[in-house]
């Protein structure tokens, strides 16, 4: 067996055995499963009862009491855990100011949660409803919106009554037209009926693939740096270099960690697929997407791990390396924060430009490929070629830096010194 295969074998076996690895391997799928389970099992109704919201209303029109009481009563009987206590304040025009001052004080002293003033032109003019609250609890933050809807319904109903128009008829007239979405396959004559949930999945699957790529490249790449720094700080490196060349060492390490990364990917994809099936979500993944994913992952990982091997070799401690890692990690966040734009417009200029920035190519291309099956083959091949060129360059640079940096202790070399190493044969 060639020496660098032995290095790869050790790297793989020793990394897979570490507690940190097993923990991070299991945690990601567990968290994903946990979130899916939690979201599908819980809704607001199941959180449990909360104390009733006390709402005081000054109705300056003096016409809405009956409608409001019936709307609020209906809501409370439908939502037994989220009661609203409505109190209509008796209003007369001349005392309204005094009354409103009193009500605001009551809100400040938490005897009312919300005080609402309905202006008198609300039925036939530009009148508004005014909400007064004081330090609403986070759990009740959605209540003004709910109450606004209830009052709106009450006001519309009252307007109908004034026009002698049946609210039931209005509702019947305003009924929404239901919709159904069918996806036609390009080849056969099958029609897939898509539920709204599936359409959301259509957005989420590309994100999931991109995130998987991100985790696979960055997390396992970090392992590269940890491993290099461990060998450097435990001074085992010189013993190693007496048996093998620096390049063999680096190549072996990269190969071992690629194997480890593929193991992690395999387990995560299987876990995600299993979780989706378990929850009855149908994910459409084509074989070609998986193949592209494999290619991009391999190249992306080679690029990033070569980079980190170089960085790791010039640092003396993990803390020092992480300082250098900061700016690099920021680049990776770019597609993560703009994923929504990328999914909506996978053929846009932004997506195309990001596809050709080597560290981001794997993430962005996988996102685009899973969001839209019509990415031009020329573009795919071009992005792969750019990535291959970047990988070759990264390995060339890393090998030079690694060779010199790995034996340097003490002060970390500056950028100019590293550039000088690159010029050396």
């Amino acid at each position, binding site marked *: *067996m060639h*020496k660098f295969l*032995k*290095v790869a074998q*050790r790297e793989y076996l*020793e990394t897979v055995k*570490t507690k940190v690895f097993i923990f991070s391997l299991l945690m990601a799928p567990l968290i994903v499963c946990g979130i899916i389970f939690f979201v599908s099992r819980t809704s607001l109704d199941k959180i449990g009862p909360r104390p009733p919201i006390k709402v005081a209303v000054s109705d300056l029109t003096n016409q809405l009491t009956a409608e409001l009481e019936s709307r609020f009563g209906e809501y409370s009987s439908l939502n037994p855990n989220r009661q609203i206590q409505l109190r209509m304040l008796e209003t007369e025009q001349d005392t309204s100011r005094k009354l409103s001052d009193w009500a605001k004080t009551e809100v400040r002293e938490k005897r009312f949660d919300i005080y609402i003033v309905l202006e008198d032109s609300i039925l036939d003019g530009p009148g508004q409803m005014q909400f007064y609250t004081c330090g609403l609890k986070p759990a009740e933050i959605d209540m003004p919106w709910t109450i606004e809807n209830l009052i709106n319904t009450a006001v519309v109903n009252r307007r109908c009554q004034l026009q002698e128009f049946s609210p039931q008829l209005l509702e019947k007239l305003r009924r929404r037209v239901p919709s159904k979405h069918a996806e036609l396959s390009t080849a056969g004559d099958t029609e897939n009926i898509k539920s709204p949930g599936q359409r959301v999945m259509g957005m989420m699957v590309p994100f999931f693939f991109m995130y998987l790529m991100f985790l696979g490249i960055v997390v396992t790449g970090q392992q590269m740096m940890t491993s290099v720094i461990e060998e450097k700080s*435990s*001074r*085992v*490196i*010189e*013993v*190693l*270099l*007496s*048996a*093998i*060349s620096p390049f063999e060492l680096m190549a072996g390490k990269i190969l071992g960690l690629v194997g480890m990364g593929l193991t992690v990917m395999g387990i995560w994809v299987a876990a995600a697929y299993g979780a989706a099936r378990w929850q009855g979500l149908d994910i459409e993944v084509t074989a070609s997407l998986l193949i592209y994913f494999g290619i991009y992952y391999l190249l992306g990982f080679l690029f990033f791990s070569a980079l980190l091997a170089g960085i790791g070799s010039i640092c003396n401690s993990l803390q020092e390396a992480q300082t250098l890692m900061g700016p690099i990690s920021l680049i990776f966040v770019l597609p993560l924060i703009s994923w929504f734009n990328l999914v909506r417009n996978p053929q846009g200029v932004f997506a195309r430009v990001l596809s050709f920035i080597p560290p981001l190519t794997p993430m962005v291309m996988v996102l685009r490929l899973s969001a839209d099956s019509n990415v031009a083959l020329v573009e795919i091949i071009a992005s792969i070629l750019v990535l291959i060129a970047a990988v070759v360059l990264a390995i060339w640079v890393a090998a030079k830096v690694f060779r010199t940096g790995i*034996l340097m202790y003490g002060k970390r070399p500056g950028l100019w010194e590293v550039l000088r190493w690159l010029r050396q044969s």
Partner: protein
Amino acid sequence: MNAISLENVSKFFGNVRAVDDLTVLVPTGSIYGFLGPNGAGKTTTIRMIMNIIRPDKGKISIFGDGSIEQVKARIGYMPEERGLYRKMTVRKVLSYFGALKGVTASELAKRVPSLLKQIDLISWADKKVEELSRGMHQKLQFAVTVINNPDLLILDEPFSGLDPLNLDLLKTIILQMRDQGKTIIFSTHAMHEAEELCDFILLINRGKPVIDGKLDQIRSQYRSNAVSVELEGDAGFIETLPIVAGIHTHGRRLEIKLTDGGDPQQLLRALLEHVPVLVFEVKVPSLHEIFVSLVGADNAQVS
């Protein structure tokens, strides 16, 4: 034949000449000591031999003209900065480095236990390296160095920090390997260890060779031409002997300085004609004294 030859090798770190025009030939089957104070260039020289750093000038060849990468499997190297994988077991560390040095799996299955027995670590074979004591760690490090049964052993400061028991063990193994015809190079700043083991000595200071050659020759070359004696009876006649240049008295002991070309054996015969001789010692200078006399006391901050 020479196991290693360095020809006009130089290495600069910025403006510092770490090694300056060094030429050394290490004969096969010898123990060669690289001596010198801290910072003399010993580790740099050894690292250049191992191709861990490259010389700026000069040529290094090992086993004839083979490049180091081709002969790494025949070399055992113990660096000054030592370390092993802390999370691996003793047995696995030894097997891993053996495999990297090209020892076959079947050979390793035999060699690992026998080597662990030899250094008395067999009961620790399946413990993790981090559980070993410092002394055991050092023994294991040495075992890693010799796992490939090397023809050439290069040890950088092998004796620093060893307890007396391990020191003796290491010296025994080094001498055994020399007797098997293997070549050993080690660096040290402790002169007495070199005197005990070495056939050849290279004394370097500030990157430059000060002395290079066979230990016996070096000693006779720098002989101080003095004899120390203890006699019974009157010693007044000694001053009259033609080969004596001067006498210092330290209590019962007399330091006799001979004239240039004066033979100590002739002195002994002359003494025996007059009085019984209790002690007769031809003064051989220690390496330390030679070094001090050559580079000056300021430089020779050695133990």
